[in-house]
């Protein structure tokens, strides 16, 4: 059975194309995928009258792609965490955690549930105040409220996406853009973005992370996978130097996850520093340059993925053995 089928009559195709052109939707080169393996066949000649609209949106599709990779990006330490500790009652959620993240690298934080990974992120972003320890970000001690840290270039997503549900997707994205402008921050991965308006910037970043839905739709109406991608786009809109992603691939389907991995690699190559919490070991081992393993709030191992996979303590506490 061929996946490529004609599903409309010629008249219906013409009407559909006109409708899409009227609504500002694109039919690139006369063809468009319907998202389910089928292809909507559209006669290019009959579509000629809609050329201006198509050209307009096609150019935006091109603009929405990833920027060209840079040939050389300087690698330097951007985040240094020393002896970080926090406790809740008698539970030591973090106890003497050390970690270093570098620009243009992806650092993974893994560990079993309850190991303290999200608590670690909350301490970094200022949502929790640690009992002790020192955090240095971009050469300065990282203190202050979450808002101050956000303006200094610390972006993050949450384990459960926290979009502003009753606002539109575009409004969600412009929140990040406003921060970038207020703090006069350049986009590490694409400096040209600063020159765009908030709407254009939000649109381009949404397309870049793979969001293909309506930007005017309420964020609360999105399916879970789109919530993840929009939250990632919103964090990128804030022009972070360090992006902290808390289980970003959970809830994504295989195709989305593959695109996501490619996106993270591209962003990292362009100079963005990424700190990643993830339970999908193939993803973590595949894209991380450096991994830190937490268990009961303590670092039990750290190093490149190849070392972590062989580490006995990690295998015992988290990875398990293939029997």
């Amino acid at each position, binding site marked *: 059975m061929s996946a490529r089928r004609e599903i409309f009559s010629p008249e219906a195709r013409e*009407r559909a194309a006109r409708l899409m052109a009227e*609504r500002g*939707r*694109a039919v690139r080169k006369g063809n468009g995928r319907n998202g389910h393996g089928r292809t909507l066949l559209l006669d290019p000649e009959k579509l000629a009258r809609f050329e201006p609209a198509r050209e307009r949106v096609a150019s935006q599709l091109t603009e929405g792609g990833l920027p060209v990779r840079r040939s050389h990006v300087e690698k330097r330490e951007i985040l240094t965490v020393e002896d970080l500790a926090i406790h809740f009652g008698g539970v030591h959620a973090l106890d003497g955690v050390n970690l270093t993240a570098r620009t243009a690298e992806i650092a993974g934080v893994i560990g079993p549930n309850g190991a303290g990974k999200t608590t670690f992120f909350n301490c970094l972003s200022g*949502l929790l105040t640690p009992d002790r320890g020192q955090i240095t970000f971009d050469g300065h001690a990282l203190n202050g409220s979450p808002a101050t840290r956000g303006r200094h270039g610390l972006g993050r997503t949450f384990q459960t996406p926290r979009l502003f549900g009753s606002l539109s997707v575009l409004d969600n994205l412009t929140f990040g853009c406003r921060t970038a402008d207020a703090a006069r921050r350049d986009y590490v991965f694409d400096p040209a973005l600063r020159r765009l308006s908030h709407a254009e910037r939000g649109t381009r970043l949404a397309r870049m992370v793979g969001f293909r839905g309506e930007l005017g739709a309420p964020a609360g109406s999105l399916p879970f996978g789109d919530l993840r991608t929009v939250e990632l786009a919103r964090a990128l809109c804030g022009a972070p130097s360090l992006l902290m992603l808390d289980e970003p691939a959970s809830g994504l389907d295989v195709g989305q996850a593959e695109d996501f991995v490619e996106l993270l690699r591209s962003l990292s190559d362009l100079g963005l520093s990424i700190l990643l919490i993830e339970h999908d070991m193939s993803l973590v081992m595949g894209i991380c340059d450096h991994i830190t393993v937490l268990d009961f709030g303590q670092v039990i191992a750290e190093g490149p993925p190849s070392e972590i996979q062989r580490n006995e303590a990690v295998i015992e506490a988290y990875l398990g053995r293939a029997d």
Partner: protein
Amino acid sequence: MSTVMERPSPSELSPETAPAAPRRSSLNRRGLLRGTGLFVLTAFVLTMPYDMKWAGSAFALDYGVIIGMVVLSVSVLGWIGEFTLAVVAQMGFGLVVVNLLQDAGLPFLVIMPVVIISSVPISILLGVFALRLRGVYFAIATLAFGYMAQKTFFQSYLGVQGGFGGTESKAISRPAGFTGSESFYYLLMGSLLLMALVCWAVNRSWIGTSLTALRESEAAFSVLGHSPGAYKLLTICLSGAIATVAGGYFGMLQGLVPSNYFQPALAILYFGFAVAGGMGSVAGACVAGIGFGAIPKYFDSLSEGRFVGYDQFFVGIVALALVLWAPGGFADIGRRVWRRLEGNAPPAPTVSPFEIDVRDAPAAAAEEGLATVESP
């Protein structure tokens, strides 16, 4: 696996035939409705003191409009997902400031701006609670603040423990030109409309969008680099200014106000009015305040005093009915009625000019009755 195609008629295929015609008609209808509604509302507001003369004095209406201001101040805090029970204390401060400024011989046009400015320190004090406390805890803190204000400052300043209009009460006069109940109504209604307009404009601006975001996820809002504290303080100051002005007007309406009026528990009643109006809704708060404030007074007048004491029974019945059948309050009822009047007109399309989605072709066509696609 099957694909069903429904051929459209030739007229449907013509590029000229677009769903624009019904939309234009819907827009015309909407415009006509809005124009008519605005005209009726304006006429009603302007003539209300005279329209309602059969039921009683315009004093009831004046009282209702002031309660409308108080309820608006409570409702505004709904924008940040909080509710305050300090509103009566803030009213009291407004009254005290008006009394002091009138004693100093200042004119009304100077007094009201000073009253607004004087509300800021109190609001900032309450804002300190809001930065550290949320929900019920914030409400309890504001209630405690109300009790402290009543037991200390008001009783020492007003010096009255007894009933209404006690001998040691402070007297406040109405501004020149607004001494009659009808003329005072226009001053009050003008002030309420101005407050509502300011609140509406704030809510429609990027500040309102930020407040919505803050209410939905404070953590996400803050890690994006926005300060929740600044927005909370702004909202509390706006709410406090409205309550303080309302207190000043209340003093002018009553003439004599003893300290025992400022029972903090009254704030719970005003909070109930705000919920009945639709927490966070500007129009709902005004309608609920005027309704719950004025109607019981008119009932008192119509029943020649036999209804006195039953006003809260009336309020309770209406509040119960609202909670059961329209939890969104008057604001929700208004929206539903408006949608029905508009003939369930769909909301205007919100597709961004940058919208690009090639996946929607079958859905878009099916939506227009063009083709039906059945999946395998």
